[in-house]
């Protein structure tokens, strides 16, 4: 096993007391234990595995293709492969996680799911899975995010979910998680919390990874088929870190594959307005696990900033913290500007409009490519950009005849 990768029974990655764990109110411990038992039983139950894989194939459109981006490769000097999670049903990797968790919910006999969402992708995925499986669904979303992702709010509502606009704290993803936890404390007997990323208290990081690791397992197989070898490097964006851990999981046992996670550098790490939790944060406890956190000297969480709602989170999954600490993976910041440039570049070179989250991975990989000319770099294109057209419209000044994006690199 790769060091720092498998959790022990208490949810620690990289040794007892290091990263992960379960820092939670006692009222929720029984539910977390129940979830852990149900999950572990299910993962070795052929009926569950068959049902989950069937749903992924026949409903979510998985496996997603591995696409060779010839024009972007020409542009970058490296051979660029894109794992097209943007083509999944609901437009992102998130559907894998929610289908797994919603199936678990049914098995536990619970009738309602709650979820937090930042960009809205996890909320839409949760609302979708709930609609498909006949569960009630409430989604908590920061007020700031409901404004910048109004289309996704409408999607969730159309799918029958109740969307609660969270007005406390910084009114973004972290506060949506707080509010969802408050709901869960009061509703835990009939409600499951579909946690949207590979963070939070044990067993969520391990559980989420088990449902999204198909990204990496498929990509590894597809890369071998396509190129006859493994990639020299893999790259993904990291907010909470679910798409990244899904990709990385397939390659952790391949030491020759370099692993890069790209965090939101916002206006630049030196400005203090960013969400580069691993690169610029410090070790603390947030939302139930010990990990890297953006915090002040007193341990108060500092508000993060990113043009991408999905990366705008001042914590990160404990698996990434452990992978960073062990040196197995490298985490670097990508600014808003670099991400938006990469969004436009991918649109122009490949005819693919990525989510702004995923554009961080593209931008970071293009930087890495400068040092890896001629090598193969596999990037997780974790989501599509339709939801981000409002941001793109403002950023690039689009939407009127004659407008154009600014010159890309």
């Amino acid at each position, binding site marked *: 096993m790769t060091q720092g990768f498998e959790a022990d029974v*208490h949810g620690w990655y990289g040794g007892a*007391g290091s990263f992960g*764990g*379960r*820092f*939670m*109110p*006692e*009222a*929720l*411990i*029984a*539910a977390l234990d129940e979830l852990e038992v149900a999950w572990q039983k299910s993962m070795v139950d052929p009926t569950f595995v068959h049902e989950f894989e069937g749903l992924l194939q026949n409903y979510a459109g998985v496996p997603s293709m591995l696409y060779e981006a010839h024009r972007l490769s020409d542009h970058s000097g490296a051979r660029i492969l894109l794992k097209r999670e943007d083509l999944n049903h609901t437009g992102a990797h998130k559907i894998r996680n929610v289908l797994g968790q919603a199936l678990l919910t049914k098995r536990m006999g619970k009738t309602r799911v709650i979820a937090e969402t930042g960009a809205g992708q996890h909320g839409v995925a949760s609302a979708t899975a709930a609609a498909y499986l006949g569960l009630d669904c409430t989604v908590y979303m920061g007020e700031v995010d409901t404004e910048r992702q109004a289309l996704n709010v409408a999607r969730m509502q159309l799918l029958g979910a109740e969307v609660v606009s969270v007005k*406390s*704290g910084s009114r973004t993803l*972290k*506060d949506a998680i*707080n509010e969802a*936890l*408050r709901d869960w*404390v*009061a509703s*835990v*007997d009939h409600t499951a919390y579909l946690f949207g990323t590979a963070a939070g208290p044990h067993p969520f990081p391990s559980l989420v990874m088990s449902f999204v690791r198909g990204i990496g397992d498929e990509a590894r197989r597809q890369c071998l088929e396509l190129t006859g070898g493994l990639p020299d490097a893999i790259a993904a964006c990291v907010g909470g870190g679910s798409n990244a851990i899904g990709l990385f999981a397939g390659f952790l046992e391949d030491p020759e594959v370099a692993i890069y996670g790209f965090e939101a550098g916002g206006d630049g790490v030196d400005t203090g307005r960013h969400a580069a939790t691993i690169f610029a944060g410090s070790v*603390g*406890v*947030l*939302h*139930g696990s*010990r990990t890297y*956190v953006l*915090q002040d*000297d*007193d*341990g*108060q*969480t500092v508000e993060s900033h990113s043009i991408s709602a999905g990366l705008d989170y001042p914590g990160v999954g404990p698996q990434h913290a452990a992978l960073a600490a062990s040196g197995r993976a490298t985490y670097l910041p990508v600014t808003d500007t670099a991400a938006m440039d990469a969004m436009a570049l991918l649109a122009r070179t490949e005819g693919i409009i990525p989510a702004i989250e995923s554009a961080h991975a593209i931008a970071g990989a293009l930087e890495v490519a400068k040092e890896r000319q001629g090598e193969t770099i596999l990037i997780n294109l974790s989501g599509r950009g339709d939801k981000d057209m409002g941001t793109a419209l403002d950023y690039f000044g689009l939407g009127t005849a004659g407008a154009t994006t600014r010159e890309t690199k």
Partner: protein
Amino acid sequence: MSTSVSVAYDKARADGRAALVGYLPAGFPTVEGGIDALTTMVDAGCDIIEIGLPYSDPVMDGPTIQAAAQQALDGGIRTTDVLRTVEAVAATGVPTLIMTYWNPVERYGVDRFAQDLYDAGGAGLITPDLTPDFAPEWITAADARDLDKVFLVAPSSTDERIAMTTAACRGFVYATAVMGVTGARDATSDLAGPLVARTKAAIEVSAPGLPVGVGLGVSNGAQAAEVASYADGVIVGSAFVRALLDHPGDADAGRRALTALTEDLARGVRA
């Protein structure tokens, strides 16, 4: 010097009544105003004081305490201000605990926090998001100084976890009466009685004499009397916060409201 809450529980027990535990977050409405409010509660009859350490991500708190804590944070409260508040309140002789989410303690340094709390005369900590199985550092630091370790039990706790938790507590065990966040409720919970009974059964085995305090939802003397009929301590938080929130900018009116509420609750625990 640090005084354990067990002193106050023993005294209440000797009087044949439950102890009244009052909570306010530090720095609300200001650091000095908070000290004034807490000493008002002491003067009016609180047996034990819980001082909240305002935190940016309070997942166990409802809107009332969130609002007060946010006001304190907006006012620039620091961890050192919370310790200063403890020192001022503990000087009255009433056992004084800090109730805190875990990250601020970890950031301050667990051992350093325990020492500074001890030096301030604080009795110990109530830790709403830290359970004993994830608290080895805190338990070591507290035991080295005989500080109170108050962990929580909930209606959803298994008997096994209640036994583990009560065995790790010092001072008292905090029973959360409802499945939910903090906040005053009109009716007391029917989950509290059975939880206290299960907790007391565990205490018989693992920690004879350890008191059980019940919190979450109590807001008046009648509810306090009901809870006092089966618990050793009645913990009140949101109702005190509400008394101050209802009188913004009027310290005298706030003080009068706190006094009236404390007296009503103190009668309740004696009923």
